[in-house]
């Protein structure tokens, strides 16, 4: 069996998809989380289920509507599951009336039924089902109600067949019949006669040429009679029909101020909205970096590398606990030593593998905290409010309020951030957003921010960390203005978006989301980062003539890596405050592979310069020249220059052009270099 899931944006489609297939697609309380179609399998019933982007109509005007329309028209489907947000019945059923015109059976999954009950809306499901001629299953994906019943009805085929109820006035129905008769068989697609005939009446983009001379008179007469054109008339009649059905089957409670309205009085307050937003974001980063990060990162490093005393910090307090831990790396090295392994083998394990991994893994607790906070803000619907109130600013900058979503997703990872620009209707706004998303520090870049902030700015670390984000915002605004000047606008863009109600976040979804992102981060650390750390170790352990760097007779600055670094260190001369440093240069270069790799590489090099013993990066002789300004400059370059290769390829894919991607890349390098050099030289000139 092949099924497709269709419904409005933000109706819980993806949640239902996950519930049916047991997979874990991204869910959020904002319109348009699903950007492409996603396929899933339900093995038990040998079925394939396709999650399509959320749409309000089968019109061809927006990308996601066109994708869904082409899909349902061309694909050989057995059934459509139409997920309906039972709390916005009218708007949802508008799509249903269109789906019922297709020659496909439809089952309505009546979602958010828990909210309907809570709000005191009374819906006579049986009557509604009879009126529409469709099987309706009330469900609540959030409370896991009705899912089994839905499966039973769908897979055991207990649903009503599509009866193609005639819902329009007689003259229009006659026109539809005439059109079908006139063309004998449908024009483009095998089955969907009624659907196509109605599209002819609407003078839809793809069908209006079919309105030939013979039908034109009839069409004109109807338009005259109702005083509306075909498109407007059909839309009005659909809604009229829905209102009639609604009045028969639904009773609403007396309106009162909803909780969402009350909350919006605070969160969308004329004066306080922006300060509240800034405070919330500051709290999120304070909690993640200063509290969770301070409490855990040294401990985790100690577990890997060994330590005699561990420094904890929480908010503005720091304390040291004497605690002797041998650590995983030294333990394995000792074990290898006792069975007679050579020095270089022990060094490979301890420095190449363990230390390189440890520095990245030590950021996981604070990332978990950050992921969790952001997931809560997303699923409650707060982020939709932010898009709503920032739209005006964004619009002035040549972006859309919807650009906020890619930026927020990009704070997790640039790749999905760039992909989520697909919901932006206007081409120019979309391109501008794609070019700007990489400026938002992603979670891999957060490791660099966090390291520098903690090492050089101690208690005020989180302020410095936030300053990188504000710097990012300033850069984005400046670049947006420049891009707007370059791309001349063709027509004005629109921002039409639902404002979803506030919802209590579901622990299950947040848990899944956090777990997913954390695992992805760990996977990258355990594969890419470890792999390249070992390469760094190898290159820094041998001279060009393959002499082993033992740290006594042969030092690290005779290694292969050093000669490689010398080739590019001129580039970082001003950034590092008039200094040629091969070690920082090669580390920054590796940011191309993954931004976490920058600190991992620095850690490996620091250890190697310390005779293979674990040491704090900025305490090692090789990196001890860093001061707060050069550290800030070095971090800035890493944050704002080219993103990693994964992001570049996502960018190329969305731009559909190598040239545009390369231009953006070049601009980013030049810009980040200028900025970082300026900061780095500041210290020298003062």
């Amino acid at each position, binding site marked *: 069996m092949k099924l497709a899931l269709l419904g409005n944006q933000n109706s819980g489609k993806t949640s239902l998809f996950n519930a049916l297939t047991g997979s874990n697609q991204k869910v959020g309380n904002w319109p348009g989380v699903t950007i492409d179609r996603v396929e899933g399998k339900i093995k038990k019933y040998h079925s394939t289920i396709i999650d399509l982007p959320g749409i*309000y*109509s089968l*019109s061809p*005007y*927006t990308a996601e509507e066109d994708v869904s329309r082409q899909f349902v028209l061309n694909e050989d489907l057995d059934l459509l599951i139409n997920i309906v947000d039972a*709390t*916005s*019945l*009218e*708007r949802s059923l*508008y799509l249903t009336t269109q789906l019922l015109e297709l020659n496909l059976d439809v089952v309505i999954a009546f979602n958010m039924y828990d909210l309907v009950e809570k709000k005191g809306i009374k819906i006579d499901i049986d009557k509604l089902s009879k009126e529409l001629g469709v099987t309706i299953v009330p469900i609540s994906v959030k409370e896991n109600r009705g899912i089994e019943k839905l499966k039973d009805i769908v897979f055991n085929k207990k649903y009503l067949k599509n009866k193609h109820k005639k819902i329009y006035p007689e003259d229009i129905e006659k026109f539809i019949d005439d059109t079908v008769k006139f063309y004998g068989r449908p024009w483009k697609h095998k089955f969907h006669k009624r659907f196509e005939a109605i599209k002819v009446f609407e003078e839809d983009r793809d069908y209006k040429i079919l309105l030939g001379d013979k039908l034109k008179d009839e069409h004109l007469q109807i338009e005259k009679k109702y005083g*509306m054109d075909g*498109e*407007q008339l059909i*839309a*009005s009649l659909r*809604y009229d029909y829905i209102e009639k059905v609604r009045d028969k089957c639904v009773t*609403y409670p007396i309106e009162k101020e909803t909780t969402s*309205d009350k909350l*919006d009085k605070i969160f*969308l*307050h*004329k*004066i306080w*909205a*922006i300060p509240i937003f800034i405070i919330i974001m500051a709290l999120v980063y304070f909690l993640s970096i200063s509290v969770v990060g301070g409490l855990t990162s040294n401990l985790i490093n100690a577990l890997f590398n060994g330590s005699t005393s561990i420094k904890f910090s929480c908010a503005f307090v720091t304390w040291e606990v004497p605690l002797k831990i041998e650590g995983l790396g030294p333990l394995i090295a000792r074990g290898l030593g006792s069975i007679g392994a050579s020095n270089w083998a022990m060094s490979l394990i301890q420095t190449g593998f363990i230390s390189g991994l440890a520095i990245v893994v030590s950021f996981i607790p604070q990332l978990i905290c950050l992921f969790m906070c952001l997931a809560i803000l997303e699923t409650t619907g707060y982020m939709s409010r932010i898009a*709503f*109130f920032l*739209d*005006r*600013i964004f*619009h002035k900058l040549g972006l859309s*309020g919807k650009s906020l979503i890619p930026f927020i997703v990009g704070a997790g990872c640039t790749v999905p951030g760039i992909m989520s620009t697909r919901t932006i*209707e206007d081409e120019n706004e979309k391109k501008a957003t794609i070019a700007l998303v990489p400026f938002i520090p992603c979670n891999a870049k957060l490791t660099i921010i966090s390291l520098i902030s903690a090492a050089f700015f101690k208690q005020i670390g989180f302020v410095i960390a936030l300053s990188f984000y504000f710097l990012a915002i300033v850069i984005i605004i400046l670049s947006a203005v420049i891009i707007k000047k370059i791309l001349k606008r063709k*027509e*004005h863009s*629109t*921002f*039409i*978006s*639902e*404002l979803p*109600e506030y919802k209590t976040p579901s622990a299950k979804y947040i848990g899944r989301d956090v777990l997913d992102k954390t695992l992805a981060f760990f996977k990258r650390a355990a594969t890419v980062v470890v792999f390249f750390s070992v390469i760094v170790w190898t290159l820094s352990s041998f001279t060009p003539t393959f002499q082993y760097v033992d740290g006594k007779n042969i030092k690290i600055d005779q290694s292969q890596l050093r000669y490689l670094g010398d080739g590019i260190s001129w580039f970082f001369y001003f950034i590092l405050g008039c200094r040629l440093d091969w070690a920082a240069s090669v580390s920054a270069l590796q940011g191309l592979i993954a931004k976490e790799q920058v600190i991992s590489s620095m850690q490996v090099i620091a250890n190697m310069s310390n005779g293979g013993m674990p040491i704090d990066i900025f305490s090692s002789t090789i990196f001890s020249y860093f001061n707060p300004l050069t550290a800030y400059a070095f971090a800035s370059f890493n944050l704002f220059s080219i993103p990693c290769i994964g992001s570049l390829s996502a960018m190329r894919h969305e731009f559909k052009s190598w040239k545009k991607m390369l231009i953006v890349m070049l601009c980013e390098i030049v810009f980040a270099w200028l900025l970082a050099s300026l900061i780095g030289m500041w210290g020298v000139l003062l």
Partner: protein
Amino acid sequence: MKKNKKVILTSGQEGHLSDLRRGQKCVVLNFHNDNAALRRRLLDMGITKGVVIEIKKFAPLGDPIDIALRGYELCLRKVDMEGIDVRVL
């Protein structure tokens, strides 16, 4: 282009949807705009002749505006609301 003239519409008067104040309700009379995609989108979202719309919230910076219709809430930019003729209830 800044519009300094503030139109105040009272019950029974006709005007553009963009001129209404918070809390006012109106009924849609007609559309006039030539952007086919926008027009279709507004129709699809339920802004058809005769529908009742309430102005719910303004974004803190005055634009866009959140309106309630057909049991849900929709955000629109002021420019897009100018093309919708209404009568205040």
